[in-house]
Structures are given as C-alpha cells and as structure tokens.
C-alpha cells in the first residue's frame, strides 16, 4: 500500500541552525501538507502546497519556515534558524483531492533543538 515517507526520523540540532526535513508524498497525490505536534499537544497545521506553490499557511508558519518541491517526488520543510520552541514532531501529509478526502500522514520527524 502506498505511504508517505519522511527522513530523518529524528534530527537533533543546535539553536540557530538550519534544518531541512524531507518527505516523499504518495505518488499520485497532488496536495501536500506539513503539520507539527509539540509533545503532549494537538496536531497543528503549518502549511499546504499545491501546484508548486503555497496554498495556505498558519500563523505558526512565519518567515523562518519555507517549503519546496525540488523534484517530482520530494517535498521539504526548511527551518532557517531553529529556536528551542521548534522542538516537535513534524508530520508531512498528502491527499489526492481537496474536499472531503482524508489526508495521509507520514511517520514524522522528531526535531530536537538544543
């Protein structure tokens, strides 16, 4: 069964460093998303991406964040200068359609900022 994959599974970085989290969405899906989940809290939307551009973003997704689809399969989230409060699980998701259909989540990358 097709699935969303994410690498790395765990990333440890120093505050102020740049990190890139990588995702391979399901191949026939057109909509891509990033969410984060701080330990013990709700899953929160960061950004959605369609047709090679951001279609929607939350207030969490500030200028420190960017997304890119560098080729036909990868979808990346870059955090330019990490802060302690960026420590969280970051989930990539993809969906085939926009309305009604569910989103399929990857296993997540646990980001720890020291």
């Amino acid at each position, binding site marked *: 069964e097709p699935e969303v994959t994410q690498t790395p599974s765990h990333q440890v970085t120093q505050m102020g460093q740049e990190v890139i989290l990588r995702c391979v969405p399901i191949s026939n899906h057109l909509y891509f998303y990033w969410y984060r989940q701080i330990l013990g809290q709700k*899953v929160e939307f960061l950004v959605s991406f369609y047709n090679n551009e951001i279609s929607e973003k939350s207030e969490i997704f500030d200028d420190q964040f960017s997304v890119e689809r560098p080729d036909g399969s990868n979808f990346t989230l870059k955090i330019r200068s990490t802060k302690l409060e960026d420590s969280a699980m970051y989930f990539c998701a993809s969906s085939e359609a926009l309305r009604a259909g569910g989103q399929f989540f990857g296993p*997540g990358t646990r980001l720890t900022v020291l």
Partner: protein
Amino acid sequence: TQLLEQSPQFLSIQEGENLTVYCNSSSVFSSLQWYRQEPGEGPVLLVTVVTGGEVKKLKRLTFQFGDARKDSSLHITAAQPGDTGLYLCARRGTGANNLFFGTGTRLTVIP
C-alpha cells in the same frame, strides 16, 4: 469557533468491552475525519464522513456523523489491545486546505 471537543479525554477498558468516544463542535462540519495515532507515529486515517446521519463500519469500529453535522461518534465493539491508541477527529480548518484536530481520546485496552 474552531473548537473540536473530544470526550472522554482518557479511557481505560478491559479487552472485550464496548466503548464509544465522541467528537463535538458548535459549528457545522462539511466533513469529518477520524484518525488513530500511536506513540511516536503519524495519525492514520480511519474514515471520512460527509453526509449528516452517515454511518460507516470498519470491522469492529462504527463511525456515525450526526444529523446536523456538528458531532460524530466512534463505537468500538469487543475492544482488543491492538485498539490502544490516541483517537483523533479532524475537520476542515479556516481554509479549505488544512485540517483542524481535536485533542483526542487516549484509549487503553487492557488484556
């Protein structure tokens, strides 16, 4: 309001028992998804409900969407230890492209 209230927050039951968990909002949903999340993993989509009054079954899991599309329930029959996990409901957020999640019900099924 975007609030999605899930109840109960925690539920611990014996294997073989039945249970129901709830997802409620004061506003109407266009659609609702149920997910299950295990520790250290991403949410796994269980079902999407769209039509008011809709009932969907997935083996021992029965999902119901309220007639007014403001609430939903998940009923598990004869719970198994493998059902243990965090059950999340999610609805479309403020825009069309994002999901807004509830706080979840953490279920533990004791063998």
